[in-house]
């Protein structure tokens, strides 16, 4: 029997469902657009897309994005540990000693730093690192990325640690664990999934950071520099530069680079979700 209540119920569910799908449409649109455009380019270039340097603007060869690919991973993987370690230490300290003045200062600093525009951070690093070094460098990029990621990582880790129910801390104390053992053997392991997710997010954001690298890494595309004091390139920078040129070849390469970035994201997310076991409370 179809009472008006049932009809209202069904309508509401349909409404929610369609709004949810609607909100996912832009995401899928982006992903499909990148996939479609990017695949064409990579198919044309083959594996050399990952090993060659970018071509001249009017060449027939597609070339590759090797410097940017290397540079992105290089800077991100160097800045990640720095960020994670600092943020983890800070969040452990502020969780264990919430009323300590240093903890409160860290909290305030973190919020302030988070609200500074990334381009401003880039400029500051330019003045303090690039200028004294007399040149762009991967190191400057690492410093800029770390500064930008720190507040976010700190908040994520603090939330993770605070999300562990107090009863487990009490249990740890009750069997004679001291503060640090409790953090190491109970709080961190119980919140490991959230922490790893936090690290992932930091990694993803860092890989996609553009403004931070504008005035720091130097856009060196001629080859691959392993020295941290030498300039290098990054995928978002390459995309930004190439897509704004009038050259069709460069624009295609930009799409290809975008697809590579997307694929890297997906690969990282999926593999870590699978590898880190959930802790069921």
């Amino acid at each position, binding site marked *: 029997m179809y009472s008006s209540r049932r009809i209202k119920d069904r309508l509401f569910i349909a409404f929610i469902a369609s709004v949810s799908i609607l909100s996912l449409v832009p995401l899928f649109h982006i992903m499909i657009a990148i996939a479609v455009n990017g695949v064409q380019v990579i198919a044309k270039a083959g594996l050399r897309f990952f090993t060659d340097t970018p071509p001249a603007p009017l060449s027939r060869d597609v070339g590759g994005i090797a410097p940017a690919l290397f540079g992105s991973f290089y800077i991100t993987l160097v800045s990640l540990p720095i960020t994670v370690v600092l943020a983890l230490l800070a969040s452990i300290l502020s969780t264990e000693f919430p*009323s300590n003045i240093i903890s409160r200062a860290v909290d305030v600093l973190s919020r302030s730093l988070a609200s500074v525009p990334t381009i401003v951070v880039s400029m500051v690093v330019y003045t303090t690192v690039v200028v004294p070094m007399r040149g762009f460098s991967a190191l400057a990029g690492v410093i800029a990325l770390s500064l930008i990621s720190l507040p976010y990582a700190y908040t994520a880790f603090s939330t993770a640690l605070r999300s562990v*129910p*107090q*009863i*487990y*801390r*009490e*249990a*740890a*104390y*009750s*069997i*004679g*664990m*001291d*503060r640090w*053992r409790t953090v190491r*053997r*109970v709080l961190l*392991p*119980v919140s*490991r999934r959230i922490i790893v997710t936090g690290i992932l997010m930091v990694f993803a954001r860092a890989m996609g950071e553009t403004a931070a690298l504008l005035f720091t890494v130097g856009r060196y595309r001629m080859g691959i520099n392993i020295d941290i004091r030498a300039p290098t390139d990054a995928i978002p920078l390459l995309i930004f530069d190439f897509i704004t040129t009038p050259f069709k070849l460069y624009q295609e390469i930009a799409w290809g680079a975008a697809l590579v970035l997307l694929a890297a994201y997906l690969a990282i997310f999926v593999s870590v979700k699978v590898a880190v076991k959930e*802790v*069921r*409370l």
Partner: protein
Amino acid sequence: MMYAVEIENLNLYIDGRHILKNISMNVSYNTIHVIMGPSGSGKTTLLRTINRLIDLVPNARITGRIAVLGRDVLSSDPYILRRDIGMVFQIPNPFPHMTIYENVAISARLNGIARSRRELDEVVRWALEKAMLWEEVRDRLNKYPHELSGGQKQRLCLARALAMKPKLLLLDEPTANIDPINARRLEDAIVSLKDEVTIIMVTHSPHQAARVADSVTLIYDGYIIEQGPAQVVFLHPSNEYTAKFLRGEI
């Protein structure tokens, strides 16, 4: 060291509020002493003061004297003090990221009770048997606690507390969140531990107190109303509040 626990003129203030009012209480060795009273009377707070878990509460001020196994509690290092005091909480809290075996073993290993794999196996088995859980988990020691029922989790917590061979065991309403059958099993396990450990248990049920207690303290609104041997208090209460509590009226 005449008593396992001696409390003298204990006063506790939290944020200025007077929570425990001039508490004096003595607990003999190898007895089950029950602190009973209506909800909110301060019994859990009193228990947590004994093993300094009250330190986790900000703005807590304590005056008076507490001695556990001859040591002054308020001036001791709480982390070292807690190695001799086991505790079981109201909400079962086995470590979710450790297996059933590891939950019990870590307690023993941390406190130097056992080191080698063989020793640990023995202690784990002993503790689980004492907690009356061994038969139910003997073939799934490498599984995780979330698979257990509430009552089983609580017995696991008891085993974990026992594995460090404490001299004093504090139980904070251990059966509050468990079904009645498991509650009785847990009570039986507790009573059987008397020979090896001194036990202080908190409950709001006069009947549970009557079932397990050798001696009792009745707390109401932060005051001690009456205390003494169970036989005396349960048959011949001298205070009208006590009689009311026994009838279930407060």
